[in-house]
């Protein structure tokens, strides 16, 4: 019994004591979230104030940060629901797929400001007696910055579900809900979470635009972190700007620790792998949750609900077996409703196109010339942005990927920098440009770069991590020079990943042009020639036909560039897959 006495020295009581503290902490957390949301909802519904006064005090900043966080979370919830429905519809219905996929392509290339006037005017008209309209408009604009890549990611992973899984489903006669719950949801959850993280960052990017904007001669301003930053920038108050930046970082870190990391750790179990070799990711918050009784409580409720609903399904099926009309009912759900929805969409597109054509019909030819000239300026800027972004991220990313220790240390820093909305730093950068006499025509490239270089960096690191170690050893054994190793091995091995990075970065750069080519600073508006500036000006001046035409041209350029350049480059890059 000598051995056992060693054991009794370990105090296992500590482990469970933690759970009481954890329970209390979660209760507090839940209550505070509830309070913030009700308070936010109350503020939004209780009064009308289209141009809120922003105070630069720290107490207000804390309040504004919570408002912005609430908006972003509501927008994210909308994005999530939209993603599930849109993605699932495309996956299940062939006609829907051929119609909805190109629509998504176009929607994704329309910048936030393209939706602005229509959304704002419509919603304000709907809720004339409260701030709900304006709040909703702001939320929907944040939503447009979040949602598209989530849909693409979700649909993409749905398509990769192994055929065997579908065969299992039909073999055991799973109904659509069981199939969704046991096959489709678990296989897509991992990518859904990663895309959600990207989307949140995308939503923050346009926060300043979404909370403060001008339409014609009317100014709109909501209380929030974005508008706080705008006001601070306009006043040239650098201390306030620094506080705003810190608040943003705090929000990003908190979301990462309390939502994303626990979700990633939780989703590990859904990976389609049958070995347990790699060490799963851990999250301290998830461990705490598991220790507390809250998760167990929630789990029990969930189990009860599902057993009830499963029973209902069984009952339904029993009834249906007796009832012949079931077939007709199913037919109605499978055939008629989707077709109805699709026809409505087609009708809406035709109607919208007709309206747009009516609008842009009277645009004079010299305005068209300006539009196309601005468009090519921005195109050149986007390409230079990608070039500069690649020049530093490729060597740096490869270096990080090949030294896992270093990348582990730097990962959190890179992740925060990547999620931080670059436009919040623009006023400071513009100040530097002002001192150094840098023209915004070139300066905007740097602004666009700040927002998009991360996509390239992340992909390069992922590519470098994937190079088989034998190939790295081979390069060393044969004493290949550094340049030879870089050009013959590393660069080509990361190329498929690099192209993915380029595609995402280019999309981001086009979108960023509306805030990079047109900047408010110290009550001045600085603008340069470019389609982004044109769109921003047109939206501010409420010149709807010009706005429509500019957005159309930009969207077409992006889509065409995708189809002609990126798609072919992507195909080419697939030859360089190492595994």
């Amino acid at each position, binding site marked *: 019994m000598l*051995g*056992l006495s*060693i*054991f*009794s020295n*370990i105090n*296992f*009581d500590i*482990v*469970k004591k933690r759970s009481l503290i954890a329970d209390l902490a979660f209760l507090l957390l839940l209550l505070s979230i509830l309070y913030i949301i009700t308070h936010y909802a109350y503020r939004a519904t209780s009064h009308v104030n289209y141009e809120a006064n922003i105070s630069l005090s720290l107490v207000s900043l804390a309040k504004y940060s919570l408002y912005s966080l609430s908006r972003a979370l509501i927008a994210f919830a909308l994005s999530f629901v939209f993603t599930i429905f849109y993605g699932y519809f495309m996956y299940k219905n062939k006609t829907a797929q051929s119609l909805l996929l190109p629509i998504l392509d176009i929607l994704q290339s329309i910048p936030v400001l393209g939706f602005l006037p229509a959304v704002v005017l419509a919603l304000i008209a709907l809720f004339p007696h409260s701030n709900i309209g304006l709040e909703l408009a702001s939320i929907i604009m944040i939503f447009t910055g979040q949602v598209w890549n989530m849909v693409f990611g979700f649909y993409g992973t749905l398509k990769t579900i192994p055929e065997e899984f579908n065969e299992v489903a039909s073999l055991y006669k799973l109904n659509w809900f069981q199939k969704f719950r046991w096959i489709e949801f678990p296989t897509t959850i991992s990518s859904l979470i990663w895309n959600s993280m990207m989307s949140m960052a995308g939503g923050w990017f346009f926060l300043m635009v979404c909370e403060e904007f001008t339409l014609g001669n009317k100014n709109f301003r909501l209380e929030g972190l974005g508008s706080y930053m705008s006001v601070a920038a306009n006043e040239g108050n650098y201390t306030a700007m620094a506080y705003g930046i810190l608040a943003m970082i705090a929000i990003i870190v908190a979301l990462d620790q309390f939502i994303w990391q626990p979700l990633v750790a939780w989703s590990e*179990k859904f990976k389609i792998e049958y070995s*347990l070799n790699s060490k799963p990711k851990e999250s301290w918050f998830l461990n705490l949750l*598991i220790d507390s009784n809250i998760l167990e409580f929630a789990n029990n409720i969930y189990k009860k609900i599902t057993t009830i609903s499963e029973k209902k399904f069984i009952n339904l099926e029993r009834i249906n077996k007796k009832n012949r009309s079931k077939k007709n009912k199913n037919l109605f759900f499978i055939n008629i409703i989707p077709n109805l929805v699709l026809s409505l969409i087609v009708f809406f597109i035709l109607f919208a196109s007709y309206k747009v054509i009516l609008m842009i019909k009277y645009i004079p030819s010299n305005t068209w010339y300006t539009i196309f000239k601005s468009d090519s300026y921005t195109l050149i800027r986007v390409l230079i942005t990608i070039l500069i972004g690649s020049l530093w991220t490729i060597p740096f990313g490869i270096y990080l990927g090949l030294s896992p220790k270093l990348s582990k240390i730097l990962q959190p820093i890179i992740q925060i920098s990547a999620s931080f909305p670059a436009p919040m730093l623009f006023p400071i950068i513009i100040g530097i440009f002002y001192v150094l006499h840098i023209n915004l025509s070139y300066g905007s490239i740097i602004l666009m770069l700040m927002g998009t270089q991360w996509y390239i960096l992340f992909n390069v690191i992922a590519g470098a991590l994937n190079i*088989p170690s*034998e*190939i790295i*050893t*081979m390069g*060393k*054994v*044969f*004493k*290949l*020079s550094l340049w*030879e190793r870089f050009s*013959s*091995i590393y660069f*080509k091995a990361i190329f498929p990943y690099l192209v993915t990075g380029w595609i995402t970065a280019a999309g981001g750069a086009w979108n960023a042009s509306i805030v990079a080519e047109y900047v408010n600073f110290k009550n001045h508006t600085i603008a340069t020639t470019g389609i982004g500036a044109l769109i921003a000006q047109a939206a501010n001046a409420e010149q709807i036909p010009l706005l429509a035409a500019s957005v159309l041209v930009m969207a077409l350029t992006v889509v065409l560039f995708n189809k002609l350049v990126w798609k072919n480059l992507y195909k080419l890059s697939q*030859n*360089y*897959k*190492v595994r």
Partner: protein
Amino acid sequence: MNVICNVNNVSQSFSLSTKKSLEILKDITFDIYENEVVSILGPSGSGKSTLLRMICGILKPSSGSVFYKGKLVDSINPNVSMVFQNFALLPWLNVEENIKLALKPLNLSKNDIEKYTIMVTKITGLSGFEEAYPKELSGGMQQRVGVARALAVNPELLLMDEPFSHVDTLVAESLRSELIDIWEQRGNPKSILIVSHDIKEVVYLSDKIIVLGGKPTQIKTIIENKLPRPRDYRSIDFLNMVDYIHDIITASDLPDIPETIETQRKENFFEALPEASPGEIVGLLEFLDSHGGYDDIFHIAVELNREFGDIIKITKAAELLDFVDTPRRSIVFTTIGRKFIESDIEHRKQIWKKEILDLRLVRYLFEAVKKSDKGFLYKEDILNEISNNLPQEDPEKIFKTFISWTRYADILAYDSETEEVTLQ
């Protein structure tokens, strides 16, 4: 004959976490002479490839040193070249370009590069395939490219890391004989060091066989192989040599210790659980049953198409559980083993439970779970216990075996999400 490479008292350890490290190789000493083929024989995971990388100069030993022609190897040795287990060919270069890539750092004239490339493609039988890309070639052909690339730089010492283990068995036979032809006919490579787990391959190729084993891996013995070349896999002398090595491996890994010492050992020591799942152990017993309750361990490995190292691990586990005895290299049922295999699943589980609870480590950990206040222990606690009592072993591996054995016995359950080990 001159010594070309001298491995002197080399050890290597890797850190498991910030606190602990695991020694993989210990006190390895041997020489490679000129005009000699040397093999390193050992089960997978024994650190053979690590040894190769230290000789090459990519990896520094934790202690000890490697000398090449009397000089300390402290950077990548330009006189050696390597053939890889997974070929390490670049998929975007064709055969010729893959070979030329290795020649680039040598600063040769264009004519010389061309000359060497043609020469090595010829001797490795790749003529006509210069333009082909690796993915168009079979495994055997891909490894020819690997060999050609290694030979192109004209190395004095050729290192080969399980070169034929991912190649079809028949193709591997012809590649081996071609390799020996090349070595006999040409000046370079003067010597070859080959890492392998295939006994026949090792006997066919080498003049000297270094047998590794134990934990941490040490040299068990060094065997001189003086069989005349060309060697014939089916000659009596060849088969005797293979048998001889079989005996050495079983003597070191499955020693025939008298019963009293065996039981005494059980009282005082925690025994490391060999990495074998209940499924594998029962499978081995079933195999034995269908072969008359008695078989040669290496024959079993061939029949089941498994690496002998794996079969030895499974046999060790079965022996630890008192299901079999291993007089020399054969496996025979014990009465318990016989009873186990003749029982139905419920009885099997009962016997299994009784046998594993006879093991000190299992019993100790099981009692610990039972006595814990909440009726469960965290994985981490058990890992700590394992590494305290068995510092030489990888605790994760022992834990995995512990869980699979106790699960099969229906005494413990493990939830990988919460990492809790509970009573069943």
